[in-house]
């Protein structure tokens, strides 16, 4: 399933609801465009909701890292919400589980942004 991305406000935090696959090509490109677009709009508190993302390849992992770094470099924060088992396992074996701030419920995630 191609990646879809929509965003909404939760107080000062922008929640990006993603669904589909984040893979080489259109999926990774859409994630990149979405995060860069939010930064251009000065939205620097970004929560990626991955509840409906069931597949990520190495290109998608790279794009998550790229977005994380881009937001950090502008003084913001990018966090992850509701990982599926496959995505969680991938982030664990690549040691990225310790790099990202990851939450299982949205309220806690939104409150965690300062």
């Amino acid at each position, binding site marked *: 399933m191609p990646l879809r991305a929509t965003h909404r406000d939760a107080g000062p935090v922008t929640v990006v609801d993603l669904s589909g696959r984040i893979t*080489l*090509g259109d999926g990774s490109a859409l994630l990149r465009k979405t995060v860069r677009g939010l930064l251009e709009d000065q939205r620097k508190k970004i929560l990626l909701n991955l509840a409906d993302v069931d597949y990520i*390849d*190495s290109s998608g*992992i790279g*794009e998550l*890292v790229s977005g994380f*770094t881009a937001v950090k470099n502008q003084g913001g924060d990018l966090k992850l919400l509701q990982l599926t088992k496959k995505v969680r396992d991938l982030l664990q*074996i*690549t040691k990225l589980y310790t790099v990202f701030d990851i939450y299982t419920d949205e309220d806690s995630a939104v409150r965690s942004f300062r």
Partner: protein
Amino acid sequence: MTAGAKHLEITLETQVESVNLAEEMCLRVAEAAGFGEDDCYRIGMSVREGVINAFHYGNQERPEKKIYLALDITPEKLIIHVLDEGTGFTLEDVPDPLAEENLLSTSGRGIFLMRAFMDEFEVVQGRNGGAEIVMSKKLPNLGGSSPNGQGGREAAPGQGA
């Protein structure tokens, strides 16, 4: 080829669509061979990463070059070959993506994932001088792979990417 072995091969264009095509083809073969859902996911991901490696690093995304994908099903295992038309590489030269200094790298995790998800993995020089990835997974009825997808092995730190 031993009795009962099956062979399938396909030549792919150096384009993004080939990655999905290769994954879908191998998933069908793996399902038909009796692998469970989690192992199919791991096999599909490994093929995907192998073809991405050939597309991007081996063939440098040059459309005039080809990617050769071959599958062998022996009585013991599913063997996958991915051959590119690049200049080849050795695993020793691939940075470890788990090293602290590489954790925030935006690339370089494909080889690591293939090593983690398959039972056997190596890179050899192909017939045309390019890199040939050869990886395999034991067929599930031999006990080498499990229905819960724990049939892979840990990638050796310092050697994956």
